[in-house]
């Protein structure tokens, strides 16, 4: 199964609309976007232009993973770039795929090392279930039911495409 660029951009338009509605209901107007490397950063850049270019930060959660001693450090780790105040801000955390919830937990731990945000809203393109932690997205582009040997992967940054792969 493949998702082409047109499909993903359509989802991004919908997600931006949903997010605007949600932020309106919650009366949060001054937001900052934070993408999680790598897929979340690509999506955050796309959402940024759809939301009137708010400030954009990037997180690499390698140093906060709970499976570090099993997997070691990824030497392709990219520097976290949070060039704005986190304290008291409304943050929109963006990732490509939500599965176990461990990446989101690690990302929130890292964000709190920069300050105490007023709120964090979670936006993901794909929610594939299989949660191991009590995490749920506020905005989700597409919910997928994957088989036990399937996973979904986002390719980018341009063109943005995705596919469901079999892992053996």
């Amino acid at each position, binding site marked *: 199964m493949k998702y082409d660029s047109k499909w993903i951009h359509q989802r991004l338009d919908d997600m931006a609309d949903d997010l605007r509605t949600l932020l309106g209901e919650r009366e949060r107007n001054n937001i900052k976007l934070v993408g999680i490397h790598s897929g979340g950063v690509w999506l955050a850049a796309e959402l940024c232009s759809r939301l009137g270019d708010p400030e954009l930060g990037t997180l690499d959660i390698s140093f906060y993973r709970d499976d570090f001693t099993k997997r*070691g450090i990824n030497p392709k780790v990219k520097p976290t770039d949070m060039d704005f105040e986190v304290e008291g801000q409304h943050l929109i955390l963006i990732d490509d795929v939500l599965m176990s919830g461990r990446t989101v937990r690690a990302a929130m*731990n890292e964000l709190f*090392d920069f300050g105490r945000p007023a709120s964090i809203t979670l936006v993901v393109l794909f929610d594939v279930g299989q949660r191991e932690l009590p995490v749920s997205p506020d905005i989700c582009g597409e919910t997928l039911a994957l088989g036990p040997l399937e996973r979904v992967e986002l390719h980018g940054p341009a063109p943005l495409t995705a596919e469901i792969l079999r892992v053996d």
Partner: protein
Amino acid sequence: MIATPPSASLQLTDDGKLKHFLSVEHCSRSLLEDILNTAAGFVEVGDRAIKKVPLLRGKTVVNLFFEASTRTRTTFELAAKRLSADVLNIDIAKSATSKGETLMDMLWNLEAMSSDMFVVRHSDSGAPSFIAEHVTPNVAVINAGDGRHAHPTQAMLDMYTIRHYKGRFEGLKVAIIGDIVHSRVARSQIHALNILGAEEVRVIGPRTLLPVDIESLGVSVYSDLAQGLKDVDVVIALRLQKERMDSALLPSEKEFFRLYGLNNDRLRPAKPDAIVMHPGPINRGVEIASEVADGPRSVILHQVTFGIAVRMAVMSMCIAGQDAGAGR
């Protein structure tokens, strides 16, 4: 004691991951590049308001310094603390070894306290390797300088600094000046530069301060400073240890400065954008003039900053390698 060269197998896991860091010799280019790339991620942590990540939370790092070194120990301590490890500093001169406890007895006692890593500085070449061979599995050993043998984390922070300013190693000419024969730093730098693909490594100094077989390490040898510095991209001045003067290897500090001391005028043959490095602590007016040490080409203090990130990278890679090997 014990001058066994650390074998590649001692410091690597079966699948080639770092589990001790004893020497850059025998390391692959890709492993050294992994260290530099991992360190790049840690540099940013040092700029944060809260300069800490939770990677080594619950791990205990023991700084075992058999030889005094305030700065190296401090940067290792800071690196471990920024990784959230607990740190113990053991001042050996004052410890029980001076009461007759053997080295191994002391190590076993420290292991019994569930230490996860020993950072070892020793005046005998090979001491960290000896300790690595004899520690319990799952305890990592990092060489923080042993005798005349190696100082691998210093060499890697120098490599990080060079890559930061020059962006690459290909095509670079690097000159190392001064007391090469007594310098574990120089030896590790030469190995690292050759592994990483520098075009030419030069050593410059009086013959009495160059090892007889130095060419076999893959360097060009110069005794004339001006010739040696011609068109180089990187200039590394080494610390001249004052005790060398007493052993009649050099007539005097003044004489050394006259022939090999770096000042702005002497730097002229180097490329206009050449950077000047020094592993510290510097002897102003002996191997380097203040106008150079504090001048625009000097990156000496940046070396110190990058050193913390490089040590964070090596420490976390070794702990991960140990844990992977143990299947925990």
